[in-house]
């Protein structure tokens, strides 16, 4: 394990260091999502289940489930989180 050099002075500016560019990335993501959502109008699905036929089903499902996942995981922290040395103390 080598090279522990935290907080060195790095004069180089990177593209993502500029908050404006981060904003551009986020806007691009929003645009792509909007496009994909709209795309549902333009192709023929081969659904196995009725739910798949709903407009934008995969998009909504992906979004809702991921938000649910994160909120549930956050809640789990309340019960399951211990400090880092939890097992090292009196093992």
């Amino acid at each position, binding site marked *: 394990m080598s090279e522990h050099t935290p907080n060195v002075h790095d004069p180089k500016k990177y593209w993502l260091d500029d908050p404006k560019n981060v904003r551009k990335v986020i806007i691009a993501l929003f645009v792509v999502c909007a496009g*994909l959502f709209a795309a549902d109008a333009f192709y023929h699905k081969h659904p196995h289940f009725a739910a798949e036929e709903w407009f934008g089903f995969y998009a909504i499902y992906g979004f809702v489930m991921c938000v649910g996942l994160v909120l549930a995981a*956050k809640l789990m*922290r309340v019960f399951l989180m211990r400090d880092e040395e939890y097992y090292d103390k009196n093992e």
Partner: protein
Amino acid sequence: MSSINPGLILVIGAVLVPLLPQTLRRWYLLALPVVGFIQVHTLADGTSVTMDMLGMTLEVLRVDGLSRVWGYIFNIAAFLSMLFAWHDKDTMQQVSAPIYAGAAIGAVFAGDLVTLFVYWELTAISSVFLIWASRTERAYKTGMRYLLIQVGSGVILLAGVLLWYAKTGSIDFGKIGIGTLAGNLIFIAFGIKCAFPLLHNWLQDAYPEATVTGTVVLSAFTTKLAVYALARGFAGTEVLIYVGATMTAFPIFYAVIENDLRRVLAYSLNNQLGFMVVGIGIGTELSLNGTASHAFSHILYKALLFMSMGAVLFRTGTCKGSELGGLYKSMPWTTGFCIVGAASISAFPLFSGFVSKSMIMTAAAADHRWFVWGVLLFASAGVFHHSGIKIPYFAFFAHDSGKRVKEAPWNMLLAMGLTAFLCIFIGVYPKALYDILPFPVDYVPYTTAHVITQLQLLMFSALAFTVLMLYKIYPPELKSTNLDTDWFYRKLFPCVLGWGGSVIRKVDRMIREEALTVLGDLTAMIERQHGDGAPISKTMQAGTMALIVLSILFLFLIVTLIA
């Protein structure tokens, strides 16, 4: 050569490693899996070699479509991980890694359950050295826990095999199925190594404690060997569908809040195994092809992800999300390769996961299992969320940790580059993979509907991540330990044992003290009667004695006279 189990090339080859000088050793280690791969390739389907031992006929080599897929990918994985470990001169790992890989390959080509058992245990014993090679107290303890569970799986397997032999008179490794005690024992033995829910925690416990290179090796073999064994012995076992679906879903909750990024990957490994297990449970040609192809592409992208995190650990000395960030500035190549791995595990179109995982999803849908399908779809979105975004984001982007390190060594970059190439190659040209699957493939991954729906699912998961980040709802990376099933044997059992021990100690002490008092009283009493100067032990003069005797005789005389 034609009758050798390809696994033995690595196992026996490993024995010579310590005799070679380091410069030669590296080339030799790379050559072993190449020879092994060629051996797998030259063996014809239906090849069978038997050997008589102790009145049993062992089938030490059996080749068919299923074992061939695993034979190929295990040798490829061995090669890539040897290349990744090229810089490492640790003899312990240089010997144990090829033995471990060879044992897994040997097990895949084992035609009977006894041969399988021998290789099964060999994978356990050889792999623990990859954990111990970290040479820390923590790794030593973790290794002991790992070894206990792994060897335990072998012991259960042996018990199952003995009962199976007693019942059927055969040790052939074919379809076993649950329902009998023998079958159930073998099922559980496989299930432990496959990290079934509640039997899973050895994986998340042990893999992140292995060495930088050791984790890459570990990630490829043990669990996928178990998937192979389940596919051969328990295809179409209904319960596997539910076991697998549970496996896809619950580890991702842990992955979201875990701080050690290699442990996050261990959780997502567990989640990906779930897809394969569902495929086995459905048991159709499509789903079994899906399991085989997903195992193949999974080994590659999972190795790639572990390699990239290994490179980060190697350069920065940590793999914790809370201490990393901004590494894309100093490790751009590693960042790129990690993103390829992340895209592959997330099943983006043109990456390997897209062409393999979807076969299992389609098989579940074709079986009209809407609930299972829904869980798998949730797990697909979730895996992108925690493996696809979280891993690269917290390691390479996010808040700049200020760490400026050297890019990974050339051999690591080359290994990652080759693995990344294979991930994309399979995604772009799936026919290469489909051609080696056990059953003929009648499946087209690239349809308009599949590409768009998959992109919708993934991009909206990314949107969810972004929105949660922007509103600061996303749980930050914190230095922490999250309780999992290992809590039972690392905290509860020692606690209960400790408490039980203290109760026993107290009771024992009470009994001893009581006994001592009784004994003390007794000796005191004896002392009073027989002690120095006590009535019984008093010494008397002869005259006194004569007087007493005379008195007694006199008394006797009087009594006689009266009577």
